[in-house]
């Protein structure tokens, strides 16, 4: 047996991107569902540093951090490559992946959780400025990876559904089709891919997930003196 296991949770965008990668390469794996409110001894053993999901186990060896896992998958199973061959193109994919995770997601989340007011408006504007930067990167391309879904598509894959759920819960609209036509078209192409579609949790579950998270975040903001 290939011995591939993935410790993850159903709504986590960081976990789903790993499932996408494994499925795109036709790698069979066992999914071990984790309860983050009651972390298992397995998770604490295999990711003692961060105690977070996802964790990939391959022949019993753990790999954590989603970008690290994606690169490991790409280097271990060489069919349907996720990263381009050219070193410069690879560095661009890595750069934009960092940008998407470190800036765009947090920007969108902030715009969603903030309560109505000037700060929320500013956050919405900032989040859209970040999306505009991604828009430029996808202009003229079917996928960030070119003709086929690649590493950067998987990392930016939070946009079609997770962003949508954040928008619904936060009462905002960030991904405006008129303002971001290329990103909008990319979302549709991405979602049309059967492997991608197969792994996405139902909208209802994502909305519940963000409802929980955003209510909690708002309660923290109120509690702060």
């Amino acid at each position, binding site marked *: 047996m290939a011995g591939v296991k993935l410790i993850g949770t159903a709504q986590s965008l960081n976990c789903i991107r790993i499932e996408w990668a494994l499925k795109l390469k036709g790698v069979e794996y066992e999914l071990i569902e984790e309860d983050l409110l009651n972390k298992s001894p397995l998770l604490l053993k295999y990711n003692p540093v961060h105690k977070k999901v996802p964790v990939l186990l391959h022949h019993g060896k753990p790999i954590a951090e989603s970008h690290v896992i994606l690169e490991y998958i790409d280097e271990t199973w060489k069919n349907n490559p996720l990263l381009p061959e050219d*070193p410069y193109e*690879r*560095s661009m994919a890595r750069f934009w992946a*960092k940008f998407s995770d470190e800036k765009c997601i947090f920007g969108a989340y902030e715009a969603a959780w903030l309560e109505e007011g000037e700060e929320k408006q500013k956050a919405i504007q900032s989040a859209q400025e970040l999306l505009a930067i991604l828009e430029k990167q996808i202009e003229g391309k079917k996928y960030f990876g070119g003709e086929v879904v690649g590493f950067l598509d998987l990392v930016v894959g939070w946009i079609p559904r997770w962003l949508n759920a954040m928008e619904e819960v936060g009462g905002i609209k960030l991904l405006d089709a008129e303002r971001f036509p290329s990103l909008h078209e990319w979302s549709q192409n991405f979602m049309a891919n059967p492997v991608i579609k197969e792994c996405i949790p139902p909208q209802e579950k994502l909305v519940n997930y963000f409802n929980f998270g955003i209510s909690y975040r708002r309660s923290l903001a109120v509690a702060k003196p």
Partner: protein
Amino acid sequence: MAEEVLVFGTWSSPYGRRVEMALKLKGIEYKYIEEDLTNKSPSLLKYNPVHKKIPVLVHNGKPVAESLVILEYIDETWKNHPIFPKDPYERANARFWAKFIDEKCLPAIRKACWGEDQKEREKAAEELSKLLQFLENELEGKRYFGGGTIGLLDIAANMIGYWLGVFEEASGASELLTREKFPKLFNWANEFVSVSAIKESLPPRDKHVAFMRKRFGMVNTSK
């Protein structure tokens, strides 16, 4: 065709020095451009419009930003003296710990040296101890994080190998990385800074200590 390699950095930044360390290890010639971050050059803004930060490597006119991304680019472009292992699991390990250093250790180091008050500094020092223990364990049976020779993770750990000592001295913080608590890491740091490509890439120590002291103050004095 003649190759042109430019490195935009600042003399005291560990991130910029990482890039220089990797290039020097591989014997790649480059032109270094010192940036004044209070007055960023049009070139920096052109080559890194997204973050407007250093370091930026420009190879034959094409810019690469973010130090860990640059290190991987360097290793994939100039294949002599590889700084990354070949095995995918070892590579994943190196990437994981490099991220760990940047996302966890560096903030803890800054707070331990220059936190707002004694309590915050003590808490950060305790946290840093726990983090350093992970790295201590990683060095088990190895001379360098890269094994027998300096690798990507050693370069990424330059903050711990050298800058930490400078910060301790500048801020007056008590030694955070001691031989007693972290014998392997302590040894590693001494070996690391002795490698000529690394030694040549370090900022001048006295100037560095004075600069950090002036910039952040000497907070850990007995009151």
